[in-house]
C-alpha cells in the first residue's frame, strides 16, 4: 500500500462524509487522477456494504422488549409533583401498556388502539407537512429510495413507483409510530401530498381496508400479513381509494 498516512486519514474522512464541500471536491479531483487512491476508497465502500448487508436480521427478539418493560415496571419510580401526576401517569400507563405488547401494537388491533395509531399516523403526516420539506430523501426513483431505508429500519419496506398512474413518488422519510421507526413514502397528487407509512406486522394477520377520519385527514389502513400500511392525506377519499388499489396491485 503506497498511500501516505495523511492521505489515508483524508480518504477515510471523505468516505465518511466528514470533509467540507471544498475539500471533498478537491479530493474527488485527485481520485479521478490517482487510481490507487480510488481503489482504497472502493475497498472501504465494499467493506461497508458487506457490514450493512446483514442488518435486517440483526434485531432483538420481541422477548427483549417484554423483559425490559418488566424490569422497568418494577423499578422504583421517582415521585412526581401531585398536579403533574394525574395526566402524566395516564400517559405513562398508555405508553407502558402499548409497549408491553412490544411490536404487537400493529397486530390484530382492537378499535381503540387502531384509533390511537390512526391519530399518530395523521400527526406524523401533519408534522411532516409543517417542515420546510416533508421528506428526508428527495427522489422519484425507487432505486434511490429503497437503499436509503437500508440500515435505518429493521425491515425492508416496499417502495412502489406509481408515477405513470398519476401519483408520482417525491421522497421518503422515517416516522416514529408507537415508538417504532416506520418507513414513510411521500407521493403527490395535484396539490395534495399522500404519506404511505409501512410498519412490520409481527402477528402475521392480513386485514381488510379500514378507514379513519381525523382533523380533516383521511387515514386508510390494511395489512398484507407482513406489513401494515397506512395511507394518509387530505386528498378526496375516492382518489385515495384509487391510490390504495394501485398500490396494493403493485405491491402484491
Amino acid at each position, binding site marked *: 500500500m503506497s498511500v501516505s498516512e495523511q492521505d489515508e486519514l483524508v480518504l477515510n474522512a471523505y468516505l465518511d462524509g466528514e470533509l467540507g464541500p471544498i475539500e471533498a471536491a478537491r479530493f474527488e479531483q485527485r481520485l479521478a487522477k490517482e487510481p490507487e487512491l480510488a481503489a482504497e476508497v472502493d475497498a472501504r465502500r465494499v467493506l461497508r456494504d458487506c*457490514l450493512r448487508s446483514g442488518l435486517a436480521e440483526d434485531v*432483538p427478539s420481541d422477548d427483549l422488549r417484554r423483559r425490559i418493560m418488566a424490569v*422497568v415496571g418494577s*423499578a422504583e419510580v421517582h415521585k412526581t409533583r401531585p398536579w403533574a401526576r394525574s395526566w402524566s401517569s395516564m400517559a405513562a400507563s398508555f405508553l*407502558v401498556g402499548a409497549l408491553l405488547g412490544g411490536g404487537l401494537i400493529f397486530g390484530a388491533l382492537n378499535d381503540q388502539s387502531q384509533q390511537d395509531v390512526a391519530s399518530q399516523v395523521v400527526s406524523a403526516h401533519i408534522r411532516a407537512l409543517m417542515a420546510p420539506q416533508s421528506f428526508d430523501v428527495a427522489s422519484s426513483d425507487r432505486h434511490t429510495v429503497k437503499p436509503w431505508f437500508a440500515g435505518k429500519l429493521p425491515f425492508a419496506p416496499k417502495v412502489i413507483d406509481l408515477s405513470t398512474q398519476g401519483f408520482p413518488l417525491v421522497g421518503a422519510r422515517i416516522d416514529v409510530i408507537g415508538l417504532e421507526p416506520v418507513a414513510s413514502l411521500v407521493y403527490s397528487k395535484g396539490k395534495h401530498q399522500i404519506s404511505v407509512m409501512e410498519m412490520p406486522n409481527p402477528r402475521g394477520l392480513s386485514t381488510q381496508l379500514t378507514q379513519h377520519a381525523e382533523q380533516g385527514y383521511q387515514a386508510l389502513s390494511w395489512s398484507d400479513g407482513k406489513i401494515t400500511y397506512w395511507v394518509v392525506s387530505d386528498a378526496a377519499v375516492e382518489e385515495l381509494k384509487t391510490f390504495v388499489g394501485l398500490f396494493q396491485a403493485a405491491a402484491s
Partner: protein
Amino acid sequence: MPVDWRGRHSTSLNVDDQTDQARFAEVFLPHLVDAFRLARWIAGNRADAEDIVQEASLRAFKGIRTFSGGSTRAWTLTIVRNASYSWLAKNRPSAVVLTEDLDQRAREEMERGAEDGDVPTPEAALIAKMEAEEVRNAVATLPLLFREILVLREIHDLDYRSIAEIIQVPIGTVMSRLARARKLIFATLRESAR
C-alpha cells in the same frame, strides 16, 4: 423549543411533567435496535447481547433524570457501551483489551499486507469474492476498540463527533483509530484468503 441551562436545545420532552417511565420510553426505547446491535457486536452473540441491553435499560431508567438534552441516541449508546464493558469485565475479563497496541500476530499481518504491493489483489476485489458473512466474521475477531469503532461508524452510521462523544476520545483519535481498524480488517481478510 425549550433550552436547558447549558443553552442547548432539549428534545421535545417537557422534563418536569413526565414520569420516569414516559421519559424512558421516549429516550431509550426508540433506540432498542441500535442498542442491541452494539451489544451484539461487542459480546459476539444474541443471547448475551440481550442480557446486556436489559442491564443497560435498567441503568438508563435509573439515570433517566441525568439526561439533559442532546442526542438521545448517543446517550443511549453510551450507556449500552458501558454496560457491555461491565458485562465483559465480569464474564470474559480476557476480552477486555483496552489498548490499540496490536499483538504480534496482528502486527505481522499488517506488515505482510503492506508488502503485498508486488502481488496486488485490490482489497475491493478480495472482499467481493468473499461471502458477506465471512467478512462480518472477520470483523468479529478484531480487537475490541477497533471492532467497536467500525460498528459505530458502519452499522450505526454515526458521524465522528457522535462517536467521539460515545467512546469519550478526541475526534483525532476517532479518525486515526477508524483508519487503523479498516486497514486491520483488510490485513485480516488477506491473511484468511491466503
